[in-house]
């Protein structure tokens, strides 16, 4: 038996597309999110029920965070960013269920998330200030720094992916190693730490995306 599963295992394949265990866990997470949202929003009312209140609190927290960082109509970024936040948060916590592998402890998943964040930065920069205005922000403060801007575009995307991947993988590995040394009760505090780290990493992923978007529109302010 392989103890350390750094690479995903292929369960079955459709033609050239390999379906790994990461993908199946992500489907499970998606079904869980959709079910929770469906059940919670079935009977909406002015006097909110318990679940509706939780959903409203999450939504308002997302809206407030976006408003604090970028000076824009939050609805430009809220749908995509809120989805990213909730999906990453749930994925980070999915590994706590026995038998499931954390989907974000796989570099493919986190790279996909980072690519979404990368394209979001450019699309929102271009839609808010036009192609020319967006390209002009690359020459700030001087033309000499242009290559560094271009390198930073790539490195910060890779860094975004590797940060989430490394944090989640290290949490899983610590749990496995401790389980091998002392089986009873000792891994529990580390699992608690893993929950906190998972939520903070999801928050940081979104906030860094917001900071990159805000950095792309520096010419206007």
């Amino acid at each position, binding site marked *: 038996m392989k103890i*350390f599963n*750094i*690479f995903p295992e292929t369960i079955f394949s459709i033609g050239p597309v390999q379906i790994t265990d990461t993908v199946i866990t992500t489907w499970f997470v998606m079904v869980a999110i959709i079910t929770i949202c469906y059940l919670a929003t079935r009977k909406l009312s002015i006097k909110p029920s318990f679940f509706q209140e939780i959903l409203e609190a999450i939504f308002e927290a997302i809206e407030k965070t976006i408003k*604090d960082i970028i000076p824009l109509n939050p609805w430009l970024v809220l749908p995509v960013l809120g989805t990213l936040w909730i999906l990453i948060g749930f994925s980070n916590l999915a590994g706590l269920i026995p038998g499931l592998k954390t989907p974000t402890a796989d570099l493919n998943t986190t790279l996909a998330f980072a690519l979404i964040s990368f394209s979001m930065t450019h699309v929102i920069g271009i839609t808010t200030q036009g192609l020319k205005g967006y390209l002009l922000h690359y020459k700030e403060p001087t033309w000499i720094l242009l290559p560094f801007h271009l390198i930073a575009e790539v490195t910060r995307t890779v*860094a975004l992916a*590797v*940060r989430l*991947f*490394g*944090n989640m*993988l*290290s949490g899983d590995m610590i749990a496995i190693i401790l389980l091998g040394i002392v089986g009873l009760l000792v891994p529990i505090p580390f699992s608690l730490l893993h929950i906190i780290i998972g939520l*903070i*990493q999801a*928050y*940081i992923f979104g*906030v*860094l995306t917001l*900071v990159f978007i805000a950095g792309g529109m520096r010419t206007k302010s």
Partner: protein
Amino acid sequence: MDAKTVVISASIIAAALVMAIGGYGPARALGRALTEALDAIARQPEASDKIMRALFVGMALIESIAIYAFVIALIILFANPLIGYILK
């Protein structure tokens, strides 16, 4: 000692060194950042929201250096390209 033994033992020592040295710098930086942030909050408690947000983002950026070291150590230990090269 044949070539395989040398490569494997060197990889293990290198992974240990990567984690030790790569963890030292970020640990000091994290401690420094937290100290300064607590200092700032103690002076201006009303600005604690902004300080905490900047602290979280900054800590994530510092911590990612340690995470890079961790990923490099993992690559050395579990996906070492040199071992396949030697075995060929």
